[in-house]
């Protein structure tokens, strides 16, 4: 990348590359829609769809936003942002595990006999079965609050 005659750090445009990326983005958009229409299992469709979306986003960031060849200060700032974003995703791991435990009908029936499952999510979360059972016995009225 070269500087322009304004002596600032604007990037030299590459119109041919912009048009190629535009074509790629259009093709990838069609691919994204096609993935959702083909009969794939939902996890596979979600994985493929998000992968294609990530490729599209990477193209826009690298070429249109000139991140390819950008100053390292900008790169560092963005890596810090990505790290902070990743921290936010950590609770999702627990959420995934808890969702499996709580919303599975068998699990709900075992932990909350006579209850309605999701209304007791807070109680069931991260407690031993003995404690949950004791809580269920001590709060019989609360069991009718579910939906």
């Amino acid at each position, binding site marked *: *990348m070269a*500087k*322009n005659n*304004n*002596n*600032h*750090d*604007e*990037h*030299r*445009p590459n*119109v041919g590359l*912009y*048009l190629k*990326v*535009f074509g790629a*983005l*259009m093709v990838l*958009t069609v691919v*994204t*829609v096609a*993935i*959702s*229409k083909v009969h794939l299992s*939902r996890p596979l*469709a*979600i994985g493929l*769809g*998000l992968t*294609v*979306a990530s490729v*599209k*986003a990477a193209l*826009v*960031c690298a070429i*249109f*936003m*000139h991140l390819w*060849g*950008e*100053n*390292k*200060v*900008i790169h560092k*700032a*963005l890596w*810090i*942002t990505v790290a*902070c*974003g990743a921290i*936010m*995703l950590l*609770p*999702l791991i627990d*959420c*995934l595990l808890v*969702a499996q435990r709580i*919303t599975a009908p068998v699990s709900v029936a075992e932990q909350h006999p006579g209850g309605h499952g*999701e209304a007791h999510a807070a109680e069931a979360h991260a407690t031993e079965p003995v404690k949950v059972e004791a809580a269920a016995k001590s709060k019989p009225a609360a069991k009718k609050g579910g939906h």
Partner: protein
Amino acid sequence: MNNPDTHSGVTNAKLGVWLFLASEIMLFATLFTSYIVLRMGSTSWPWGWDVLNVPLATLNTVILISSSVTIVMAYARAYDKDKGGFQKWMAATLLLSLGFLVVKGFEYGHEFALGIGPHTSVFYAIYFTMTGLHGIHILGGIAVNGGLLWMSTVDEHWNNHLFLGRVEGAGLYWHFVDVVWIFLFPALYLL
């Protein structure tokens, strides 16, 4: 690329725009995280094809990607000091932006006519929140890009050595709005 006139190697304006975008990334990341939590916690989740207008959303995707190209072409014309070319491509960007909002308006209008709103379900609550916030960002981009188009008609602004940096900053913001939609489209409408 390093700018010897600055301490960090980039102009303060560009660094400021990128830091602003970093905060925007965190804002939308929070919403996407909420979306994932709500979706995983739901016993059922509708398929976008069944409850939303996917063809209109696909059209909007094409419109927004096209506008990303037109604004980068406007930047290329500004770089070459081609005022007419800049104005043409920036005007095209504005038209496409307005087109996006019109299409989105049709989509919202149809949903409201059916009595569908954020109150309808968790899915619609997160759908209206995310697309609504994105729409507000589109409005902000239109204001900035419209301002630059007007500034280009004033020689004092057009000849200002900072003008090209302003165009690049506006372009960065607009591409970010495009990237957000690139993830919103499959997350809400397709998958």
